[in-house]
């Protein structure tokens, strides 16, 4: 049988028209000559950095081009029929029935105006696959399989009434409802906290095994895809880099790029031996929002000169709020902050300019932290004028010097943020912080929006700068691998409280408190069968109780 595969993609070519600023529109190729096969009930992981074309390939399985992308060549065969030749009506019968899609952000992909249950069964009922009652029963069953709370009443809720992890599972239920042959998962856990990610991952894995559905699983995290896939395809710039079984890709990658992806998280830094002389001291600091909601409860920690303090926690744990309190953006409601032995005034407004200069911030989204209408020269030059009164040639010389320090050439000086890649933008943001010649830089998840290899470059740069200029970092992250790679001391936060603080070797070794234990065990490891192991230990632990 030539067509024993459920899905078979041959020489796929996808193009789009791009409109670069100030230039005539041009045709760009997003995906070029990609071929793969997927058998019934199997999972293929598509992995690559942003712009690799993995989502575009996933959507081509639904014969859909997002934002002007057009499938211009090749074939996508489902059970031997080329779905690209089906026409609008024909493809509509397949979507939501035989092929379903799970989007990255379920929060945006669910319609805020309708109940979850109605949205989950809509396609199934509209395609005439089940009656409304049958579909409701199926949804209830899926809610149970996916481990959603109160499955009987879950469908009655609106999207804004449930958490992000639950929404992602509801989206999976929506995709599974019609008993499809194939589901495309487009980074379903990327937007979630690690502790939530592991539950959703386990739920998805269990559900697709239970229902014997084939899946394309798209992600940029090799460790995640290793837990769920049978085969993996590594993509870069729209082309296949390597395509093989999970085992082969993880344990014996043949291409350099794949090897780099596999090894990306394996660096560790030796912590500084002496951590007693504090540069920054946060003493019993509490903070609340103007509506009276307490976000920080008596946090105490310190950081020494030339060292890195990593603050770890999930979203809502108060880690970014702590950074805002240190900068003075949010005045604390209690406690004190001292810098080089002298107290910092609580509000930004009352701080002397020199105190402002000594503490700088780098944000998660370099995109939104820069004025899109300013050139790199203006962005980096602003603090030079503000703190040092530099103008004209002296300013330009210093900007060039800073561009050198962040390993970007002078050629970038007149570019706008839109003309820079994500990694380059973050480097410019670092240069802007360096321009003030600070002693402390607060880094608020500066790498979490970046691809792993780009993020690694940024981390290396930060470490190099630290060594050269004796900088101290407060590094906020939710990624334990980053903590291992850069930190001297670690603070773990949970729900506004500090649950753990100390030198890295101490903070990250047992005995653990419950939360740190959960956090550490939730981080996907580049190892086959890791997910099963974790789930087994959990099951044993709960059986033992």
């Amino acid at each position, binding site marked *: 049988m030539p067509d024993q595969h459920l899905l078979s993609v041959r020489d796929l070519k996808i193009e789009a028209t791009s409109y670069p600023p100030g230039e005539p529109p041009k045709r760009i190729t997003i995906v070029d000559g990609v071929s793969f096969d997927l058998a019934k009930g199997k999972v293929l992981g598509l992995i690559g950095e942003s712009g690799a074309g993995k989502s575009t390939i996933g959507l081509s399985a639904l014969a859909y081009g*997002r934002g002007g992308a057009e499938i211009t060549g090749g074939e996508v065969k489902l059970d031997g029929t080329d779905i690209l030749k089906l026409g609008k009506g024909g*493809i509509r*019968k397949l*979507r*939501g029935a035989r092929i379903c899609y799970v989007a990255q952000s379920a929060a945006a992909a669910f319609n805020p105006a309708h109940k979850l249950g109605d949205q989950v069964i809509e396609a199934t009922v*509209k395609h005439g696959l089940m009656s409304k009652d049958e579909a409701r029963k199926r949804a209830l069953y899926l809610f149970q399989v996916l481990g959603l709370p109160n499955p009987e009443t879950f469908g009655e809720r609106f999207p804004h*009434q449930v958490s992000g992890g639950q929404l992602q599972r509801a989206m999976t239920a929506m995709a599974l409802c019609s008993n499809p042959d194939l589901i495309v998962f487009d980074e379903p856990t990327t937007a979630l906290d690690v502790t939530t990610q592991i539950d959703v991952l386990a739920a998805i894995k269990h559900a697709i095994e239970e229902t014997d559905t084939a899946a394309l699983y798209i992600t940029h995290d090799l460790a995640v895809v290793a837990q769920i896939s049978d085969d993996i395809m590594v993509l870069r710039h729209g082309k296949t880099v390597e395509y093989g079984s999970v085992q082969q890709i993880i344990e014996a990658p043949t291409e350099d790029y794949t090897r780099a992806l596999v090894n990306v998280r394996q660096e560790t830094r030796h912590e500084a031996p002496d951590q007693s002389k504090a540069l920054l001291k946060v003493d019993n600091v509490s903070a609340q*929002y103007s509506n009276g*909601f307490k976000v920080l409860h008596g946090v105490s920690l310190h950081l020494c000169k030339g060292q890195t303090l990593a603050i770890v926690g999930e979203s809502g744990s108060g880690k970014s709020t702590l950074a805002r309190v240190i900068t003075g953006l949010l005045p604390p409601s209690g406690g004190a902050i001292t810098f080089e032995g002298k107290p910092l005034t609580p509000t930004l407004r009352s701080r002397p300019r020199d105190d402002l200069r000594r503490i700088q911030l780098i944000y998660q989204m370099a995109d939104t932290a820069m004025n899109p209408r300013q050139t790199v020269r203006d962005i980096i030059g602003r603090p030079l004028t503000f703190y040092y009164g530099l103008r004209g040639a002296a300013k330009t010389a210093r900007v060039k010097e800073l561009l050198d320090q962040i390993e970007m050439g002078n050629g970038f000086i007149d570019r706008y943020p839109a003309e820079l890649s994500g990694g380059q933008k973050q480097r410019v943001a670092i240069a802007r912080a360096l321009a003030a010649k600070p002693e402390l830089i607060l880094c608020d998840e500066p790498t979490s929006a970046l691809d792993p290899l780009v993020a690694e470059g940024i981390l290396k740069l930060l470490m190099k700068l630290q060594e050269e200029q004796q900088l101290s970092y407060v590094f906020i992250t939710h990624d334990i691998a980053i903590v291992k790679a850069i930190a001297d001391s670690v603070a773990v936060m949970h729900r506004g409280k500090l649950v753990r603080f100390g030198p890295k070797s101490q903070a990250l070794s047992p005995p653990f408190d419950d939360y740190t234990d959960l956090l550490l065990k939730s981080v996907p490891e580049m190892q086959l069968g890791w997910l099963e192991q974790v789930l087994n230990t959990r099951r044993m632990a709960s059986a033992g109780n």
Partner: protein
Amino acid sequence: MSNSAEAGGQPARSLRDRFPLAALILERCLLSLILLLAVSVLIFAGVEALPGDFATTYLGQSATPQAVANIRADLGLDRPVVTRYFDWLGGVVQGDFGTSWASRNSVSEQVGNRLGNSLFLAGFAAIIAVPLAIGLGMLSVHFRDRMPDKIINVISLAAISLPEFFIGYLLILYFAVDFGIATFPATVYQGMGFLERVQTIALPTATLVLVVLAHMMRMTRAAILSVMSSAYMETAELKGLSSWRAIVKHAAPNALAPIINVVALNLAYLVVGVVVVEVVFVYPGMGQYMVDAVTVRDMPVVQACGLIFAAVYILLNMVADILAIVANPRLRHPR
């Protein structure tokens, strides 16, 4: 921030946090009342500031200072403004708009009849215009940038560009004079049967529909188009839903707030702006009544009409605000 949403866990939860919907609606109602009060002051002051005076107009040539003073005393115009205002307001609150200076009849009685006629005309126009405008708006999203969309746009734009009296005369020329299939003048009177009434007001209704259609239709189109690029519209498409169903079921409910607002504005316009159309078609409604009263400086009638128009305007906008609040699932179903 997700943090602030969790603030509800604390014991000291205000009523506002517990019933956000009721609190918001109550707030709207209170605001409307205050606004209405402010408008009543403005109307009273405005009428007070109008040049000319009833006594002089009424007496004409024989306006001796003594006669003018007598009439002024008769109507109570010699009392201080503030006293007269509160007197008037006290009456209005009890539904008494005073006595017409010209006809010496109760204003409330006359207005009641006229208002009924105006509301009938406006209501009939609204029943046709609102569903038609929203339907056309959704159709033009469905066919966006193609022929049907362009035709709908051009015709509705042409209709809004022509002044309503012009449209009125055009309709009279073709349908009443040339083809003779409609009645003119559109004068209704008491004891007329419903069907006869509807037939009589066909032309003014058509005029009003044409005037308000474009505005509502274009707003519907713009509001729905702005949600078409949302991620959940992509979800709808990837679920294999038809484009029409996606628009009606998934886009429209999320575009409701702006649509409701523009519909309310146009309904208010139908009631308040009906003046010109009523005059053109000799229709015995509020508009014509007010125009007549202004010419003879019959202040109690002018004030009554002004206040009623203002009340209709405020009421419709308040209803629109409340509907827009209710249409938001986040407020209807708090966490």
